[in-house]
């Protein structure tokens, strides 16, 4: 139970970084003029059931006035004073495109009840209270939760829902040569897909390691290729195919520490000669075939019942 709470707090913090102030703020802002009296301001608060407003002069925000200023004015018998005299000038503001977490920290740091929200042109576009923040986070949590439920249902029931003598799901990923920018996308895409299918995390780890190594081999050493994963009940088969140049001596390539990687690739931490041995260690079955000038075909199988175990 404790762990669950900790996890949810983390999720909320994550949301506070994802959401923008503009997504949480109230957009219809009630404002007052600096020339209104405090008595008129009291009426504005009462009618709109709010506790403070920005003060606008010719469309420009010059201050903020709150129920606390009103109480002070009441106590001093100065209800006929103008808002301009009693307001706080140059209020602290937030930008609409700032992450919501900035608002959270400003509230806890300054202990104000509200902050006006402006755009980068300095125009007032909204107002935000701690209640707005809580509501925005709850709305988002609800949406996320709903989406996750749908994904989980759709994916993890697929093998039960489909009626056939044989079922196979095939996922294909193209891998471009020398594209270090996108390198790793195929394996992370496959990893995500498998977790949605409800496959055990330990199995996914083995698939992820083997697929990443195969993907990097295609990126570093070949003219490009593809990775095809075929999921059947009980096992996954991963094939990595490339368009050459091929491996002249497979036995040598399988030796831990053997590598033909150029210096600049080694400097990035690749080319340690551990890729193929890592794939072998992750796979239950492995086949590697290569023809120089044609290409290489890696074929591995990982069983879900963890006959190998790590």
């Amino acid at each position, binding site marked *: 139970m404790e762990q669950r709470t*900790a996890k949810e*707090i*983390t999720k909320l*913090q*994550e949301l*506070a*970084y*994802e959401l923008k102030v503009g997504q949480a703020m109230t957009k219809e802002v009630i404002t007052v003029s600096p020339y209104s009296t405090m008595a008129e301001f009291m009426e504005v608060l009462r009618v709109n059931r709010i506790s403070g407003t920005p003060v606008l002069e010719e469309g420009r925000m010059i201050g903020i006035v709150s129920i606390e200023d009103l109480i002070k004015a009441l106590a001093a018998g100065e209800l006929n004073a103008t808002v301009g005299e009693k307001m706080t000038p140059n209020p602290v503001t937030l930008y609409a495109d700032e992450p919501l*977490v900035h608002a959270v920290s400003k509230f806890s740091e300054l202990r104000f009840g509200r902050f006006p929200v402006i755009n980068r042109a300095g125009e007032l576009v909204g107002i935000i209270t701690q209640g707005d923040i809580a509501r925005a986070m709850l709305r988002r949590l609800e949406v996320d939760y709903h989406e996750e439920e749908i994904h989980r249902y759709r994916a993890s029931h697929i093998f039960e829902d489909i009626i056939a003598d044989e079922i196979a799901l095939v996922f294909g990923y193209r891998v471009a040569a020398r594209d*270090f*920018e996108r*390198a*790793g*996308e195929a*394996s*992370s895409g496959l*990893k995500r897909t498998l977790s949605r299918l409800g496959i055990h*995390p330990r199995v996914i*780890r083995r698939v*992820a*390691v083997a697929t*990443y*190594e195969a993907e*990097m081999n295609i990126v570093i050493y070949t003219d490009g290729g593809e990775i095809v994963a075929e999921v059947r009940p009980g096992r996954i088969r991963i094939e990595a195919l490339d368009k050459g140049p091929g491996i002249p001596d497979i036995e040598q390539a399988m030796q831990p520490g053997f590598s033909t990687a150029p210096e600049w690739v080694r400097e*990035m*931490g*690749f080319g*340690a000669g*551990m*890729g193929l041995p*890592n794939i072998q*260690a992750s796979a239950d079955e492995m086949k590697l075939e290569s023809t120089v000038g044609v290409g290489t075909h890696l074929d591995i199988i990982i069983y879900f019942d963890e006959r190998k175990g790590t």
Partner: protein
Amino acid sequence: MKLREIATALDLQVQAAAGKLDVEVTGGYASDLLSCVLAKAQKGNIWVTLQAHPNIVAVASLLDLAGIVITEGRKPEPDTVEKANEKGVPILTTPHATFTLVGELAKLGVVGVD
């Protein structure tokens, strides 16, 4: 121990995914060879390395590592930061060498996995 507590205790600079620091660190691993990391680092580990290119994010994300510490004052490349924010992989930096930082981590009770 949470990654946030480690970052504070060792004065690490957060370079990416600042929203993901409240993850529990299960241990540590240090290497600049990505294949070694793939073979050895475990879920929730903190990874100490000199590498700063975007592929470290892919490796950390595939293994569900808690975060990456880049040592010797190196800064992650802009692409690395972008990817790390996208995948939610915290990246921290320190001016210290790997050996020094691992020593400090050990003092905090973060242990190796082998």
